[in-house]
Every structure is written in C-alpha cells, then in structure tokens.
C-alpha cells in the first residue's frame, strides 16, 4: 500500500506539474515573463519560509522551558526598532559580495530568518494554547517537534493565514528592495517593470497594470480568509 503510493505520486506529479513547469519555462520568453517568475518566486518563497520559520520560533518562545528565552525574545522584538532602511546598504553589500544580487536568494534567506512581527504573532498565539494538549501528546509518546507538527500546526490555521498574507504583501508591494536587489537584471520583477513604463506625469497614469498587479494578494487573501475567523483549538477541551 505504502510502496504503491510512490509511482502514483510520481505520475500525478508528471501530469500536473509538468505543464506548469513547461508553461513557466515558456514564460521566460514572453515579454515580462521573467519578471513575473521573479516576482512569484520571491513572494512565494518568502511567504512559505518566513511563516514556517516564525511558527517554529514562536513555538520555542512560547513553550520551551529555558530561563533565557525571554531575553532572546526581547532581543528579537527590539530589532523592530531598527529602521529597515538603515540596514539596507550593508545588506546590499553583503549580498553583492556573495554574488546573490539579481537572484531571488536574498528573499529566501530573509524568509528563513523570519520577521519579528510574525514571530511575535505566533508566540502570542501559542502562549495561550492549552497546555493539556501538549501534555497529552507528550504522554502519548511524542517528542517536541512531533508535538509541534501534530498538535500545534494543525490548530494554528488562523495565525498561519494571517502571517502568510502579511508576509506575501510585505514582499509583493515592496518596490524599493526589489529595485535595489534586481538592480542589474534587465528583467527585474513585475513591480519594477510596471513602474519603469510609468510616464513621468500623473495625467495618464496607467491604472490597469497596477490594478492587475494588486490582484494576487487579494486572491490569496480571499483564499485563506476563511481560516482567519476559524478557531477550533479549544473544542477538544472540556464539555
């Protein structure tokens, strides 16, 4: 049964993912195609990675029993007070020297790092998570990571939805970083390409491309918003 699943999955992957990959490959030949690929890559990778990273960090800050965790947490929060623009130039220099300019890699690394706000949100959510569920899973035989994956993650849909939408919008609408870190790439990202063709006067402002550009986050939000209001975590507790 378990072994039979693997070929089925492989065939399924070939059938469904194949055209997508081919289509994306084709995109690179279309005008602005590469810009779209870049935009989607940085936004999606940052969203997925930063949410996963912040969930793990929030879990540790909320539930790990070590005395110094609050000191570290305060340190993480205090980075919120450093204006992001201040670290921009040094980061550019670092990524330039690592030859990661004009690639999506900075966003991947920022994603792995997580953001203080997302970590904060996860920590607050997990701090009020019923302790009994964790205890019950520990007695049932789960280790800490297994408890996180089996118990905490499935019950954190609202907070995952919030932080993911927030992360996506953070990257999708961030013109300055994209312009800077794709500085030497003629393809750029969708956002930098759209603004490149904007005329210098506002009389004939091309609203259509910008309106279209705003669609993905809206679709994403509509897709996850049902989770945001949903909270079932306490329903296993009490009568």
């Amino acid at each position: 049964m378990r072994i039979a699943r693997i070929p089925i999955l492989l065939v399924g992957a070939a059938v469904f993912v194949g055209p997508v990959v081919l289509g994306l490959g084709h995109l690179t030949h279309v005008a602005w195609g590469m810009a779209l690929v870049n935009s989607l890559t940085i936004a999606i990778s940052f969203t997925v990675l930063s949410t996963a990273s912040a969930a793990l960090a929030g879990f540790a800050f909320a539930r790990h029993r070590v005395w110094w965790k609050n000191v570290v947490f305060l340190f993480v929060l205090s980075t919120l007070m450093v204006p992001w623009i201040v670290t921009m130039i040094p980061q550019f220099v670092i990524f330039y020297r690592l030859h990661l300019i004009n690639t999506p890699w900075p966003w991947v690394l920022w994603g792995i790092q997580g953001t203080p706000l997302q970590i904060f949100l996860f920590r607050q959510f997990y701090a009020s998570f019923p302790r009994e569920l964790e205890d019950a899973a520990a007695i049932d035989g789960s280790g800490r990571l297994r408890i996180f994956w089996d118990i905490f993650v499935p019950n954190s849909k609202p907070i995952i939805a919030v932080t993911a939408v927030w992360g996506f919008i953070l990257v999708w609408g961030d013109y300055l970083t994209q312009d800077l870190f794709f500085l030497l790439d003629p393809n750029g990202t969708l956002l930098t390409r759209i603004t490149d063709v904007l005329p210098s006067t506002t009389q004939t402002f091309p609203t259509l491309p910008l309106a279209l550009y705003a669609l993905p986050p809206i679709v994403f939000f509509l897709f996850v918003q049902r989770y945001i209001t949903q909270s079932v975590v306490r329903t296993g507790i009490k009568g």
Partner: protein
Amino acid sequence: MSEIVLSGVSKTFPGGAKAVDEISLTIEDGELMVLVGPSGCGKTTLLRMIAGLETVDDGSIRLGDRDITNLEPRDRDIAMVFQDYALYPHMNVRANLSYGLRVRKTPKHEIERRVDEVAGLLGLHDLLDRLPAALSGGQRQRVAMGRAIARRPQVYLMDEPLSNLDAKLRVRVRADLARLHAQLRVTTIYVTHDQVEAMQLGHRSAVMRDGRIQQVGRPQTLYRDSANLYVASFIGSPSMNLVRAELEREAVRFAGYRVPLDLRRRPPAGSPGQVILGIRPEDFEDARFSPPGLPTIDVEISLVEDLGPEALAFFALDAERVEPEIFGVAADRRDQEALMADDRRALFSATLDAATAARAGQICRLTVNPARFHFFSPYNGESLLDTELPDRLEEAV
C-alpha cells in the same frame, strides 16, 4: 509487575511554595489508589510528577523494577486522563484513540483491532468519525478514557476526570470506572478533591494536605479510624462533630453530658484528661428508633432538614466550638459553621431516622454510639486511638 513506589518525593515551586513534601507511598500492582485533598494540597502536582510532566526535586519514583524519576513522559509507559479531557480538536475520535499507537508505530491492523476493542468497551462505535467539538461532555470523557486504555500502559493516571460532568452523569461514569478497573486490573492513580468519590472508588485512598499525606487507608479506615482531626473533618459529609471533652476512667464528659465509654474503644491509659471528642452525625439517632442500651443525651434542636431518606438535625451544645482551623480543616465544615456565625457554641449535626419527631425548638432525646467515638489530642490534633490497627489486622488475615 507495575507497582509504583514513591520514596521521599518532593517538589518546590519557584517562589518557595512546597507543593509536595517528602511523600512516600506504595501503590500496589493493579490497585486503584485515590489521592484526595482540597485544592492546593499538591495532589495534582504529585500526579504530574509521576507522569513526568513536572520535574522531581528530591526523592525517587519507581515503576515495577525501573527507576522512572528522570525519564521523559513518553518513556514511562503510563497514560493520563486529564480534567479537561485534552482531546486533540482537529482529530476525529478514531484518530484521537489511535494517536498514541500511531506515534509508537504500532502495526496498522493492531491499531484497528485496539480501537475497535476500546470503542466496544466504552460504547464509542457510533462516534468514531466525529470531531470532539461534536461530542457531549460525557462522550468526550469516554473518548479521553478510551485514549488511555487503547495504549495499554502499565499505569493509568486520572486527574479529576469527572469534575466537568453534571451530577447524575458523574455517578454513572464513576460506576463505569469502577467496573472498568475491575475488568482491566491496571494500576491506577486517581486524583480528586471530592471525598465521596474517594470513598466510592478507592481500594485505598491517601488524604493529602499541604503537600503531605495525612493518612492512607481503605475508605472504612479513613472514616472509622481517622488518623487526625484533619482527616476526620475532611472525610464524611456532613463532617464530624467536634467538642472539647474530659476523659474519665469509664466515661467522657462534654458540654454538661456524661457518656459512658465503650472500653474497647478508648484512648490508652496515660492519655491526657483533656481531649477533643469526635462524633459522626450518623452515630446519633433519635432514641425512639435506636436499639435499647445505648447512652442518651437530651438536646434542644435548632433546625431540622428533611433529606428524604433521613433527616438532618442541628443542635447547639453548651460548649465552646472547637476551631478545627488550627489543625487546617476542610472548607465545607467552615461553610457549615458560618450559618451560626453569631454563636460561639459548638454546633452539632445528627443524621436521624426520617420518621423522627424532632422539630426546631423542641427538646429531643438522642442516643450516641460510644463504640464509634473518636478521640483527638487537643495539642496536635492526632488521634489518640490506634488508627492503624484495622489495616494491620486485615493484612494479618
């Protein structure tokens, strides 16, 4: 063998509160041991220490021939039923029941067999595909119990599993629990603050207070031969009547009465003349309904509560009230005495035959049973009788 041996187990919380204070206790293989005491007495902390959810500061815990003092919860082979059930809210009943088995990589057919078996045992077959949110309180309770049973651990730990059920359901589930234990014969530690539950469930109960065990024994031992004033007041409802008394060679004097002693049940010679006399409400009876030969006292009834099968009569004695608080006595007794807060006299209660003619304001003749008297030291509240005798006799037989 899954005998649990606690030796000198202690736990101090940060801030200096001593939650569990050098507890030594042996729970025998297959026994249902009840830890009972008011909230804050350390019973739940002790249970969580046995589960591995709290660290042990001092002492050791053995399970069978293993020292489990510092093991992770998952390596102890125990299961726990939580007060709030703690069902996994995103898993249906089947997944809840089998989670512990899946984590331990039990073969699939074995998991199915055990879930089926537990569902049959607890009547959960129709609920297997429901989420906890779609279950009633009693059903959730059964799933929580089933999750523990499906694992087939060496020991069950139960933390007030009935406290969230309504009164009628509680009685039923309690009976189910006793039946289950008789069927499974697995060592069980059961925590409750309800002395009635302790009396009905336990092979043995350990009465706890301030992190210490006051007395361990069978329900009848705790009731008939309480080791100290604390246990005497905690066990039994309504609680034991207490009054200062003077011990003579063959009688006891209290509040102007002189009642002859039962010589088989009196403090050993050399006990102090001043004692605290304890009489359970059940050991009074309306003289018209009791067998002849028992000593009587005449009292003025101040209140009669008709409970249906029996009547509860209250009367004040011409003696100062014993303040059992100095020995740290259970809360429900204080509540009861608050009724008569303006009166410094001792307030006694007596459970009488429902047909009693006793009415408030009238004089009534009651019999007392000296074979059931309790005597406590007025200095430290310890019983002056040999309270361990009945258990020792039983062991000898």
